[in-house]
Every structure is written in C-alpha cells, then in structure tokens.
C-alpha cells in the first residue's frame, strides 16, 4: 500500500459557474494492481461521494472513462497507478470538450463528427439471402487497426488541430470513415467522400501524431487519415 496524492479537477456547474474550476487533493493509499479508475472509485466510495466521472465496463472496452492523467489522455481503467511513476497524480477531464461536471465532458460534438461521415456500411447491391457475403481473410485484414475503436474520445481530445478548429472532423471520425472505405463490402465511398473532402475534413489534419500517442487501443488514426488521402488522390488522378 503506497501513499499517493490525487489532484483531481473539480467543477460543479451549480457552484463554480463562471470559474475555470478548481483542483481538489485527495491523499489515499493505493494497493498493488490498482488502476486510476480503482483509485477514483476508492475516492468516490470512501472519501468524497460527490466526485463525478463516467465509468462502466472497467476493462477497456466500453470507452466511458477517457480522461487526462498526468497530462496524457487515456482511459482510467487501463492505467495502472504504479506505472505512472509519480506520487502525485493529476486527473483532468478530456481537453477540447465542454466540461459538464468534474471529469465528465460533453461528448455530443464528438459524436456529431461521427454522424457526419455516415458511420455505417452502405451497400446498394442486395446481399445474398440466408447467407453471408463472402470476404476473403486478406480483405478482412484491411479492417484490422480500424474497427477496434471504442469511441473513448482520447484521440480527438488530444488533437491540436481540433482544439483550434472545433469543426474539424477529428481523428476518430476519419478513422471510422477509413474503416468503411477499406471494407470490401462497402459501396458508400461516393456518399462518404463529400463529408471528408472538406476544409474541416481529411485535409485539415497536420499529421501531428498526438492521436496515435493518445489511443489506449494503440490504433493509428494518422495512418488511417493518410490512407484516406491516398484513396482520394487515386480517385482524382
């Protein structure tokens, strides 16, 4: 059991309105194997019940607990406290989004970007009845590294271009577009390309690679964006 100080961002819209929020310190003992989410749960259940944060599956598949820990975006449930290497742990809400309360941010703008790129399979030809469409393992492999996204928001929140341009689709939505673009079953490129071929779309990315560093699932959104550009280049030439 090691002593840690958690410096947690707090913002209660009913009390702190108009302020930029405050930082509250919690000194707690952390057991071996605890993740940052375990520590937050401990604080909520034993120290201060008013602390608000999202959480659900606590094993890195639901994407609820995206936050900024010691300045780095990740999901709290996968971040071992001991691996942080500091005795003082700063926990902040994801940047680039409006804070609703404490560590909870408004993800609506993030989801809106996804809706904009038509995040679903578009197929005009009828599928075979009572059978699957065939897809070779090689074609299926193209989806690897794109379909695993859990929508935690860590990438878009870490993107300086998104901070500057709130209309930028962001790495997440663009990677989703790439996921469908490379799917051998999808026929929606023409429809989808309008949304991403925009000054707030695929061309806005400055290949800063923050999203790659931030992704807790180790996906490479920048590469997906580059792939999209390549596809569009091919389409034009």
């Amino acid at each position, binding site marked *: 059991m090691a002593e840690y100080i958690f410096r947690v961002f707090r913002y*209660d*819209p*009913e*009390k702190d309105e108009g302020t930029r929020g405050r930082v509250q310190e919690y000194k707690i003992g952390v057991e071996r*194997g605890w*993740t940052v989410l375990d520590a937050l749960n401990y604080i*909520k*259940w*034993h120290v*201060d*019940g*008013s602390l*608000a*944060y*999202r*959480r*659900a*599956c*606590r*094993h*890195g*598949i*639901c*994407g*609820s607990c995206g936050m900024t820990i010691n300045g780095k975006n990740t999901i709290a449930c*996968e971040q*071992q406290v001991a691996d942080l290497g500091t005795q003082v742990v700063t926990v902040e809400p994801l940047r680039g989004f409006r804070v*609703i*309360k404490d560590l*909870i941010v408004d*993800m609506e703008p993030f*989801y809106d970007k*996804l*809706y904009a790129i*038509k*995040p*679903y*399979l578009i*197929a005009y030809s009828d*599928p075979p009845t*009572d*059978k*699957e*469409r*065939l*897809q*070779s*393992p090689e*074609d*299926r492999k193209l*989806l690897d590294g794109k*379909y*695993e996204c*859990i*929508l935690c928001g860590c990438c878009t929140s870490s993107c300086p271009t998104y901070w500057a341009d709130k209309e930028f689709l962001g790495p997440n939505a663009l990677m989703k577009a790439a996921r*469908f673009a490379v*799917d051998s*079953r*999808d026929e929606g490129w023409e429809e989808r390309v309008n949304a991403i071929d925009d000054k707030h779309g695929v061309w806005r990315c400055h290949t800063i690679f923050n999203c790659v560093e931030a992704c807790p699932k180790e996906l490479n959104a920048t590469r997906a964006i580059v792939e999209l550009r390549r596809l569009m280049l091919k389409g034009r030439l």
Partner: protein
Amino acid sequence: MGKFEGYRGTFRCVDNRWLGTDEAKELHEVEGVELHNVHEHDAVIVGAGLAGMYAALEVKKAGFDVAVLTKVFPTRSHSGAAQGGIAAALANLEEDHIEWHFYDTVKGSDFLGDQDAIELMVREAPLVIFEYEHMGVPFSRTPEGKIMQRYFGGHVKDFGRGKPVLRACMAADRTGHVLLHTLWEQCVKLGVRFYSEYYVLSLIITDGHCQGVVAWDLINGGIHVFHAKATCFATGGYGRAYKITTNSHANTADGVAMVLEAGLPLEDMEFVQFHPTGIAKQGILISEAARGEGGYLINDKGERFMERYAPDKMELAPRDIISRSMWTEFLEGRGIGGERVIHLDLRHLGADKIKERLPQIRELAMKFAGVDPIDEPIPIQPTAHYSMGGIPTDINCRVLGDGKEQWVRGFWAAGECACVSVHGANRLGTNSLLDASVHGKRAGRDIVEYLSVVECFEPLPVDCARKAVDRVNWILKADGPERPSELREILQDNMYELCGVFRNEEDLTKMYDIIKDLQKRYQNIHIEDKSKVFNTHLMEALELGHLLEVAEVIVAGALNRTECRGAHWRTDCPGRDDENWLKHTLAWKTEEGVEFDYKPVVITRFIPEVRKY
C-alpha cells in the same frame, strides 16, 4: 387479421391525442414534471445493448417512432464486453446441425430451459448472424471467405455424444464489441432517437397495462415522463450484486427491480452463472475462447485437474461445472498458493496463435494481471457472470403479469433481464449474444405487429411520475448516517461468499438476514452530492436500492430450491431432483417477504437425463 385485433377497441381516442387540456394541467402539477418533460413515442425501449437496439431497429424499420433510453451512451453497453462469439449452427467449417445446437442448449440448461423457446432461438440463429453480416459486422473469415467459427464450451457434435464443434461465430475476440457497434451504426443510419444518459426510475403500469416509463435526465437533472404504446425492457443483468463479477458498473438490476416494484413476478432468479475464468481479484473476464483455442487449467500441483471432473470435455466442459471444479480444488487446498486462484495456461499455444486469435485476452492479462500469457499462466478465479433468471416472458417476449399466461399489455422484455427461458439453470457460452439478438428482434417484430393495430395513446394516469419524484427527492434530502457505498460493499462481499458457486441453508439464511438489515439501513442513507447536474452519487444510491431488492429475491429463491441444478448448487441438498424441482420458480415481493409460485418446464423433445460431460 393480426393476433392483436382484440386490443383495437380498448383504447379511448381523443382526436388521436393522448391528453385533454385539463388532464395535461394536472400532469403538470405533479411536482417536478413540467409539460415539456413529457415525451410521446410509439415505442420506448429501455437499454441499448444488443437486445434493446435490435428491437429498436425492427420497430424503426417498420416506420414507427421509437425512442431508446439508456443510462450510458449506447456503445458503452455491456453487450460490448462479450469476447468469444455468438452461437449458430452455420456449419461453415465442419458438419453441424440446428438440432445439435438445440440439444446442447437444453442439456446446458440442465433441462430447465423451455424447449419451445430454445428451438425457436436456435432456428433463428443463422438468420440473425447473416443479418448481422449484412449490417456490416467485421466477422473473422474462413479461407473461403465465410464467417469464421471456433470451439466453445458445451457445444458438441451428435447430440452430446461427439467431439466439440466449431459453432461460435467470431470477430477475433471482440465479437460483442463489433456486434454492438454495428447495431448502433444501423440505428444511427435509420435515425433511431436515443435518450442517452437517462436513468429510468419506474414503470407506468395501471390495471395490467404498461404505458411507458419515468426517467431521470442525468445530464441536466429532472424527471421526464415517456408515454408509449409499447414499452420494452432490455436492461441487462445484475452481476453487480457480487464482489467478483465480470459485469460493468452499470449492471445493477435496475430493470428487474422496477418490475418487482410494479408488483410483477421474477422467474428463476436463483440461477446466477459463475464464469470460471475471471482475472483473480478483479473478476474481469478472460473469454472461454482462451480454452476454446486450447488453454489448460492448472492447479497448485501442476495438474490439469479437469481430468477428475469432466474427463472427456476437459477444459471445454460448461462453465458451471468448471467453476465448481475450481471451487472444489480451492476447498481441498489445491488453489495456487493455497488461495482461491487457478492458473490458465496458454503458453503451449505459442506466441503466434496467441497474438492472432486471442489479442484482447493477451492485452487484458497484461494490463490487469500484469502477466503476458506467452510467458506466464494467467491467475484466475470464478466470477459472477450472467443471470439466467429475470422478467418472465413468453416466446414473443411479452412480459407475463402472473408469470404464466397473462400478458401485461404493452410491455415486452428481452435479453439478459428477461427469462424466456432459454438458458434454464445454466447458460452455454455464446448463447447470450444469441439470446439478446434473437429476442431483441422478436420483441421488435411483435411490437410492430402490436403498433400496426393499436392506433392511439391512452391517457396517462395523472400521478404517474409521483413515485419516481418522491424517491429522487427523498434521496436528495436524506441525511442519515449511512453511506450507500459501504452498504453496497457489505452486500457484494457477502453475496460472493454466501450465495456464490456453492450454497447451503445456513449461509443463505445468514445472507438473507444481512440483506434485511441492509434494507433497513438503506432507509438511513445520505449522499454527498445534492446537485441536479450529473449526480452520479444519486444514481449510485438508486442503484443500491435496486440491488438490495433483487438480491433478496436471489437469496430467497436459492434458499427455496432444495436441489442442485445447473448454476445453483446446494451442498446440503445433493443431486438434481426432477420429481420436485423440474419447474420454474416465480417470485413476488410482498410485505411479508418473497412469495413463490411455480410453472412447469416446456418439454417438447428431449427428456431430462443426467447431465454429464
């Protein structure tokens, strides 16, 4: 003529509107509910996992107005955590038959599953899988490009006599995740209305007729009334009643508790499945896929101890049998280091196979157990995983008010929160995604038929939100000495020890008293967050109330059923007792405690026999 023709005349139409002006004013006067907080939708679905979103999709496709209420954003639902696969006898890689799947599910249920429902489910399974594929699910593929399938516990060839069969359709080990996301994508495509982060508080049921739900808007705070012709619960399970569980923090028995509060019965609540391979101390699931791919279970002496308990199927025996085998090893002192831990050994599979077929399992083991399965075995222990019981429904997912025949008009339930019952006393792996999908779809279809007959809304009772408003206000104002989190921890610790893998009368009685005491203490709670905006402490307090209600029924049911069947194992009542207990438990909550009734199991084809693997 549809089967709902009889309901056409029973609705009072006021210009096809649901309320007259006076009635609207009265509703307005209910404290906390403003007129603009009353929403009207043809169908309201509570829960956005596979069952909920499948139902919503069906209803939306038919052109009706459907709203999905969910306490977390749809893709955060716990269906997404399922890893291994979804069962369907596609025979993509080797011979397989729907009848074999049928038999395996019946046998897995320890013959408590209703065979008419099981047959329907396994017959619809391939169709649902193909529909998923057409929606765009990125399934793994066979060399010919068909959907890839893998082995899974309890699924075998030739009516239980043959070797394991490749039946679990898979997308690496993220099957639930891709199904959930794809369904959500389709809902987005069709424009299903989601109310994300709305926490449903109570049902509106009058005279056996369900008219919607009352919910709390988590983000802004405030009571909302959802008025609907059709209401469907897809609220998931209650693994959070246990300390060690695979379930998400959100799986807190909300839906089942609300049904109980509405005076309706619950079915077979004593059956809670323990998954054998949860990461030690955390409970996080290591999918059965790890054993399906050939993983070994090893005790402190280095033995593959399953030799003693299921010599044929070994590690691929059903979950309940493996959990009990592990617990027996613990009790006989052969847990790793004398603790309640067993090793799951994957090392012999080799680095390549582990990386290609089990990438997420490796990631989980590394992140949560600090162990790379390529070099070391993973420490595991049994973990509360799935609730077979739930809201009694018929094969069309209509909720039964007496648990047997009488439908609560306008009310459906599907998925883990419902008990059709296809899982009986024990669920087979990969049948949960199937159950949720098939029954979500069936519920959706049935709702469509109902909506195409029933044209208008019936007036809401004016005090429909009263109960919910009172409860929220009570918790916000409560200033007793008890902390909800403390009470919950007492409940969870004791449930795992006293009402877990093995049960006996003494433990269960003790547990029942603990719950009664906790329920009393619950009346004296306080919360530290009194605000309206995103009050997660309020939500935790409400969840605890639900857990305490439902835990009482689980324990009372376990105490009542004096036999061993499937996941329910009474050490003081050895053996399955078909003479007295081949029947479903129905449990009501009354002033005096839990009251029971029973209904027979539907047996159409397979006569109960000894369940041996």
